[in-house]
């Protein structure tokens, strides 16, 4: 057993941190970060996305033959953690994660040689942004009960249905759309289709206004008789659930590593604050009511890192991590919410004010309990794998 990162892994993680600190955290007007201003306008940080592409973030797990870096899941986890720690724009990082782990990864794992060659080289450069269209108004946690249909007529599939809460939809050029070819079959009838923006019948709604992650565009997608050639099926007919499960394990490692990084940033700034802030003639950090909260924040980071690294380690060895990734998702997201609340509470009234840029973390964190499978579903998975 070895808990240490190798020298190469540590150096790689630091290089990502240094990049993000330099390029993804620009100052805005006055004392605010540029992020503060972007969030007010729910504006996507397009330049930051391009910088991520230039540095290689969008190509991390993609093999060199498609223009990628060919990094393994451990390196991806470390990179995402470093991004979360250095970059305050959680919306940008959410967009990056959706692009890489819920669109590039399914293409890499299940795509035909032609599909990979056609899309991955443009996705790693950021020229083509991907999105993952699964959720529907009537199909959230019960993901495989989707109503979007794929009907085969005269050798072509025709997609009809509505998708909602689709991350990146307003800016995406490629849509991985899940549809059912036979609703009676449930999960076994779900198939993934690749659909390009501009195809007749595909409509993207206006960006949805959200509680947090405001700089990550989210939208609705409507499909009305969208004609798709069978060659645009991702994997095989009926393999939609396999695609979905595989990418979720990646997302539950890498997206939540971003949140772990954010928690590390929160801890550092909060420790500095409680040392500096004086009440009753002394630093508030000297009061146990404060220092115990700080200790709790540190404990969450330590345990979150252990389970995240374990999942990455298992996946890098080809081991199934259904149980561990559910535990990881559940633990890290709950920790993220609680640590964000603690960071606000320890700053008192200042924490509650938007301009101090801590309350944003709370709003961003709440979503982590919901996406990638709600925490209630993660508990179902954990209990189920215990034979219940």
């Amino acid at each position: 057993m070895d808990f240490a990162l190798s020298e190469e892994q540590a150096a790689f993680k630091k290089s990502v941190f240094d990049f993000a600190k330099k390029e993804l955290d620009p100052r805005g007007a006055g004392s605010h970060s540029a992020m503060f201003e972007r969030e007010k306008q729910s504006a996507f940080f397009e330049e930051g996305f391009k910088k991520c592409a230039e540095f290689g973030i969008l190509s991390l797990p993609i093999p060199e033959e498609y223009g990628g870096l060919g990094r393994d899941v451990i390196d991806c986890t470390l990179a995402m953690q470093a991004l979360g720690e250095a970059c305050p724009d959680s919306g940008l990082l959410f967009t990056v994660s959706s692009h890489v782990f819920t669109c590039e990864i399914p293409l890499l794992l299940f795509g035909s040689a032609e599909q990979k060659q056609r899309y991955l080289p443009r996705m790693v450069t950021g020229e083509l942004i991907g999105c993952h269209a699964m959720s529907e108004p009537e199909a959230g946690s019960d993901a495989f009960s989707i109503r979007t249909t794929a009907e085969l007529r005269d050798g072509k599939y025709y997609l009809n249905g509505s998708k909602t809460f689709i991350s990146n939809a307003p800016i995406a050029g490629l849509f991985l759309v899940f549809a059912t070819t036979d609703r009676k079959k449930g999960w076994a009838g779900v198939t993934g289709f690749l659909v390009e923006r501009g195809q007749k019948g595909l409509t993207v709604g206006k960006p949805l206004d959200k509680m947090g992650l405001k700089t990550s565009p989210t939208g609705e997608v409507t499909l009305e008789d969208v004609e798709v050639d069978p060659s645009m099926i991702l994997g095989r007919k009926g393999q939609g659930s396999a695609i979905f499960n595989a990418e979720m394990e990646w997302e539950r490692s890498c997206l939540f590593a971003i949140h772990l990084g954010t928690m590390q940033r929160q801890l550092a700034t909060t420790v500095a604050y409680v040392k500096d802030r004086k009440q009753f003639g002394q630093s508030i950090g000297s009061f146990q009511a404060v220092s115990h909260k700080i200790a709790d924040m540190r404990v969450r980071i330590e345990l979150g890192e252990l389970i995240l690294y374990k999942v990455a380690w298992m996946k890098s060895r080809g081991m199934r991590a259904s149980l561990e990734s559910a535990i990881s998702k559940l633990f890290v997201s709950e920790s993220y919410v609680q640590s964000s609340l603690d960071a606000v509470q320890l700053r008192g009234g200042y924490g509650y004010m938007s301009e101090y840029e801590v309350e944003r973390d709370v709003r961003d964190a709440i979503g982590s309990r919901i996406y990638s499978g709600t925490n209630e579903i993660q508990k179902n998975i954990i209990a189920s794998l215990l034979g219940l």
Partner: protein
Amino acid sequence: MTTEDILKGYFSEKSDKAKDLGPTDSLLEKGLLDSMALVKLIVFLEERFGIVLGDEEFDPDNFETLDAIAKLIEAKRA
């Protein structure tokens, strides 16, 4: 005990619906294999038979019947 016997025992333990399950009966049509049950089954198969199933093997055809699952296991062990 054959692979099919082990599989039948697994499903029988989970549900009464598997009592008269034949080797070519559809597990989906009998309501024995929803998406959550599939995840559990995969974990069971990997532990019980010492195999590792790749993402591409999560194909509905491989899990349609006891016969199909048994063939998948035998192919992985070959």
